């Protein structure tokens, strides 16, 4: 590139001391916003997990009173500890998290001790459904996406492209607060009469149309979350296209940036149809229209007095038009993180960088035209089902290419088994299981047996939990020293990793077994009544115990996370992992404006162990 990208910069605008509100709350600095996203998303992940733990009790021991004290006390004690530590040693973050944990404990206690929700300590089916819907919603829209895109994307992308900030800092702030309020709205629905939304995260009408008021609030919450994502995605695309440092061509972008780039397009173009669907469902619920209600409905013996004529399947089309691309939104940033960590810890370039990039673009494109593989059982004829089966099989190819390239990248490396690397490595086979189990689901005849069974639950949890969540953990451990200037403890990290690895498989592998046996998902009693489920029922307890153990293994992580902020081993340089990408070529932590001098890029993202180089890594900005 001949022209200079620097002409737009105005050198050294003065950095003012700003007040607390401006610095921590209404900050427009992408790094602060990234951290806000991170903390909020982690807390939501924790909350979504807590909901699932309550459900897992019911699944393993249907009809047995829940030890509510234990469920409320655990986050309570953790929260109190964090609060005390925070107050005593003046750590604002720990204190804040302590307060939120106490809040979660209070909410759990509020729910568990409510006689109408837990008569004699056993949750009622409505509550189970509501927890299930909220677990899905929270995990996807309030946990993983904000963490993967909002947090890592925000913090890392501008650094990796050598930009002083995101292209639109104010929009960035608006995006975070829109997300935050979306989350608050969602949470508030737990206190409504009838509780939170209870029609699944998919909110299929007519069920969702006739559901309690929590569903309306869910829709409003979704509109806020969608707004947040749209603002964010515009910002990311513009940042990546416009603010790349001089010399940083598209084919020199770190793969993580590519992943975020494609992800942003998915969010940008797939979310609006869900927003449209949300508006229509809101109209149905509030204005009495019948977009999704056919004529002649009789609900509990009463004719529903609406004009009718609508189509329940319309919602499904619009929902999955978003929700399928959304699952790639869950996975692409994770793949991006894994690629960064693998290149760094094998000390060699990624194998087949270009094919990975092209595969990702292709994957993004295809993800818009596979959605109806979630709807094979709605009565599809041969033409339409053939179309969607074919596109579904096609879309698995780029995934195979990406995974293959990542696995082959290991070959010939000098592999350092650091904690981030462990998580990144585990991602590969775990995503492999999750992805491969997508194949029988993607073919309509086999989906007959597997649709809406625990096989589906197993399939996607393998991709999102030991897949994406692990990748996110890898990212946390990997970029932690950049943010704090200190390393996280290796020992605690290893406990966290191995414990989580075993437990994750303990939770999700049996789901595949149950699913093959034909056990339906979303069953309040885990299938206890069904005769075909009897042979695999014993797994319920195994899965639940694994889930509880998984929770226990997050404690070393929590300790590690907070302890290391002030007590972790100090990094010796700005680039503790000897990495090549630009985010490591800034001061630690990066100041407002990121770079002390404008970076210029001369080489590709992963020039590790280059022959003729004295060190085993050559940063991108080295001439």
């Amino acid at each position, binding site marked *: 590139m001949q022209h200079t990208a620097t002409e737009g910069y105005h050198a050294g605008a003065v950095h003012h001391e700003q007040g607390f509100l401006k610095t921590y709350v209404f900050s427009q600095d992408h790094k602060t916003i990234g951290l806000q996203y991170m903390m909020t998303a982690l807390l939501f992940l924790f909350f979504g997990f807590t909901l699932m733990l309550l459900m897992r009790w019911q699944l393993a021991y249907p009809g047995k009173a829940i030890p509510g004290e234990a469920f409320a006390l655990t986050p309570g004690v953790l929260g109190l500890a964090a609060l005390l530590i925070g107050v005593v040693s003046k750590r604002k973050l720990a204190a804040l998290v302590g307060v939120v944990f106490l809040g979660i404990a209070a909410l759990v206690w509020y729910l568990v001790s409510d006689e109408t929700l837990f008569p004699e300590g056993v949750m009622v089916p409505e509550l189970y459904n509501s927890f299930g819907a909220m677990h899905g919603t929270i995990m996807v829209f309030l946990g993983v996406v904000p963490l993967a895109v909002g947090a890592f994307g925000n913090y890392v992308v501008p650094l990796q492209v050598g930009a002083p900030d995101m292209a639109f800092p104010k929009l960035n702030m608006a995006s975070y607060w829109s997300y935050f309020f979306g989350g608050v709205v969602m949470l508030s629905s737990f206190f409504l009469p009838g509780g939170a939304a209870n029609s699944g995260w998919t909110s299929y009408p007519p069920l969702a149309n006739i559901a309690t008021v929590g569903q309306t609030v869910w829709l409003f919450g979704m509109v806020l979350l969608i707004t947040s994502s749209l603002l964010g995605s515009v910002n990311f695309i513009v940042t990546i296209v416009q603010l790349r440092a001089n010399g940083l061509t598209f084919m020199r972008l770190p793969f993580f940036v590519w992943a975020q780039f494609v992800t942003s397009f998915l969010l940008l173009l797939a979310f609006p149809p869900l927003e449209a669907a949300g508006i229509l469902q809101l109209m149905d619920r509030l204005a009495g229209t019948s977009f999704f209600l056919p004529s002649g409905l009789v609900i509990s013996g009463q004719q529903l007095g609406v004009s009718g004529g609508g189509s329940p399947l319309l919602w499904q*089309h619009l929902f999955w038009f978003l929700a399928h691309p959304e699952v790639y939104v869950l996975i692409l940033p994770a793949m991006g993180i894994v690629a960064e960590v693998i290149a760094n810890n094998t000390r060699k370039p990624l194998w087949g960088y270009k094919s990975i990039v092209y595969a990702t673009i292709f994957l993004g494109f295809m993800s818009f035209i596979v959605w109806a593989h979630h709807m094979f059982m709605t*009565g599809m004829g041969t033409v339409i089902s053939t179309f969607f089966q074919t596109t579904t099989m096609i879309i698995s190819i780029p995934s195979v290419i990406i995974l293959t390239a990542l696995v082959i990248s290991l070959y010939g490396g000098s592999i350092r088994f650091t904690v981030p690397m462990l998580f990144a490595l585990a991602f590969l086979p775990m995503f492999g299981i999750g992805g491969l189990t997508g194949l029988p689901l993607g073919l309509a005849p086999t989906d007959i047996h597997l649709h809406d069974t625990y096989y589906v639950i197993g399939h996607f949890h393998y991709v999102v939990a030991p897949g994406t969540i692990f990748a996110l953990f890898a990212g946390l451990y990997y970029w932690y020293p950049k943010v704090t200037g200190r390393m996280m403890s290796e020992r605690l990290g290893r406990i966290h990793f191995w414990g989580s690895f075993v437990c994750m498989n303990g939770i999700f592998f049996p789901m595949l077994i149950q699913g093959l046996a034909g056990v339906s998902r979303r069953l309040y009693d885990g299938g206890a009544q069904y005769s075909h489920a009897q042979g695999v029922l014993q797994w319920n307890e195994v899965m639940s115990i694994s889930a509880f153990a998984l929770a226990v293994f997050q404690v070393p992580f929590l300790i590690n996370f907070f302890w290391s902020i002030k007590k972790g081993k100090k990094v010796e340089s700005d680039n503790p992992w000897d990495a090549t990408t630009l985010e490591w070529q800034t001061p630690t932590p990066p100041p407002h404006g990121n770079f002390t001098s404008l970076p210029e890029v001369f080489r590709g993202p992963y020039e590790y162990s280059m022959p003729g180089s004295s060190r085993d890594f050559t940063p991108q900005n080295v001439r």
Partner: protein
Amino acid sequence: MEHATPDAIKKHVRTYVIVFVSLMALTVVTVAISYLHLDVAAAVIVAMFIATIKGALVASYFMHLISEKRLIFMALVLTFIFFVALMALPLLGQHDTIG
């Protein structure tokens, strides 16, 4: 707009006026045709054809799409493809059902 000499802008303004007049004319035409009560298929085709022309005029001249950068074009083409998929596939699905 890069070649934004005053003269070029004045030329633009003339174009705007022409486009404006055409839009008005097309509006009148489309309303007039609707009073002919053509059968549904023909009416849809005519109305959408005129609307597309009008839309193209607005996008090309008022929104300067005609001289816009390639990047924006590509983004819009992508959007258009997905838009068509979103239109066509559910319809096909509704048409191609069991039984």
